[in-house]
């Protein structure tokens, strides 16, 4: 299992549209991916669970992946949260 703590830099955090893009990106990996914030955790492929984390800009979350492509998944998703991926 690979995990990495990330500070969310995306301006709108993980709201509807960014959460959807994030979940979609997570779905491209075969590994099971979770996002943890404090005591809460969310399946990274669940848009609703991601939004319920209420993870806004500046907050720290941890991305955890387990599976064949866990390294790549964590790297790609962490990078996503640290960019303005919603503004493309």
């Amino acid at each position, binding site marked *: 299992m690979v995990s990495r703590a990330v500070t969310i830099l995306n301006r709108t955090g993980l709201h509807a549209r960014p959460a959807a893009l994030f979940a979609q990106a997570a*779905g491209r990996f075969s590994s099971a991916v979770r996002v943890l914030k404090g005591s809460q955790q969310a399946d990274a492929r*669940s848009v609703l669970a991601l939004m*319920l984390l*209420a993870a*806004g800009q500046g907050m720290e979350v941890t991305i955890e992946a387990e599976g064949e492509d866990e390294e790549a998944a964590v790297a790609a998703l962490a990078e996503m949260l640290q960019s303005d991926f919603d503004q493309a």
Partner: protein
Amino acid sequence: MFVLKGIGASAGIAAGRVVARAADTALPAEPPPGDRRQEAARFAAALAESRRQLTEIAQAVRRQAGEREAQIFAAHLAMLEDPLLAGAIRAYIERDGLAAGQAVERAVAELAARFLALPDALLRSRADDIRDLGARLLRNLRGRADPAHAAGHAAGAVLCAEDTTPSEIASLDTEQELGVVTERGAVNSHAAILARALGIPLVIGVSGALSRLRAGELVIVDGASGEVLVEPDQETLARYAGRRQIRTATGGDDSPAVTLDGFRVELAANIGSVKEAAAALAAGAEAVGVLRTEFLFLDRTAPPSEEEQFQAYAAVLRALAPRRVVIRTADIGGDKEAAYLALPSLQSGLRTPHSTFRTGENPALGLRGIRLSLRQEEMFRTQLRALLRAAPFGNLAILLPMVCDVSEVRRTKELIGSVQADLQRFDLGPWTSDLGRVSVGVMVETPAAAVLAAELAEQADFLSIGTNDLTQYVLAADRTDQAVAEWYQPLHPAVLRLVATTVDAANRAGKWAAICGEVAADALAAPLFVGMGVRELSMAPASIPAVKQAIRRWRKADAEVLLSEALKSKEAAEVIELLSRLTAD
């Protein structure tokens, strides 16, 4: 008169009669629950139908508002299939034995409550999206149509409801439903974002709106101030009408051109470069009727790359979104030469012994427009790829120049299909894979196309009549030749009759017709086109205000009488005399 105060959520003014939509509680009773397997199957069917509806809405919104707004429904689709929604509903059915409808209600209520407990207002408003999805699932479980479609509102309505949803706003027929007033809602809700993108005036937070407004009452909705003026007096009506007048005087009038009896003509701009998009907007253009793409192809030594074209198209589409931009595929040839196409190496492949690329004496009758594009297939595919890639950035329609019959349209559509398939193969996923269907129009500028307008209208999504070329072909008068200038008469009855039958053919086929030649800018001729039932006049941006004024002076019914008179004329002079006489008094 009295005034209800709410919050302006989408600017704009609408005056219309109240249509109340009661809360969606009057659903027919659910059938008695079947066994778990049956209930699971009912839910699966409702889910599939909901998915289909949302995909359709996303496509319509992409066309009308743009990619960003369409993403709202892409997100709805993702929420619908989410383990916390569809997954929870399935568990309630299969594990707990609930009926499908009860399972939906419970899952939606629980999920909405979790969102409502969040500290962030924007996230709290996601509860509305979830309820919207829940209501859709319930309607589909019980076989009910969308309320917006079911209501069949009268023209000129102001919809009044407890609350509205993104899917309701997206399904409004903006020709009929002019504005929306709600008791609840949030300025940052997806419904409000969509209303702003679609230009639908929306006032939210009007407490007691449903009990204080009666169906059929006349109201003015001011989406900027958040006021709803009920049964306004003459003076107030005049003041609001006056506000439109003031905008006209400053030139930035973006209110529509509507005849006295309510027929609306879209006034669009013809532009020939990315820069002109700004001028079109400043002049109050509601759309771009023709973006000529020759600027990319001429005065250079090699054809433009896909990337260069893509950047140019995307820039125009983005600048004008959500307005429709009709982009005409390259109309090279005729009087517009591209040197690189005349290179012998290229030419040898497409030359017959007697014709060179620029057919010497008679280029207007030569290899130009769609003819050249279909001969130079690689160049054409590059242009189509660039267009389709740019499509998500705005509201694109593609126009084919110099068509003679349906074979050229069919061939182009095959190419578009093949280019689209190529693009999809490299695509990332459900967000962009479904490009929607880009509408394809035919330019009617050859007499053949005008005569075969009915057949073309079946194949095309719209017809755009290029009166400049049509005039020169019908009257056999080269428009660049001074010696025959007196024969070049766009208002000649021979031309007008062809234009009128073309518009008629489009209207009969349920397609829209536009005029995009110079005569569209002629305020004198405007009532003729109104009489024909033309839906769009596209012209140089500077002419828009004058044509708008001309249209507003007419009733469509009178314009039809005028047209029938004009069509009886034997020569152009008679038409012009008729028009001048009528406009003088």
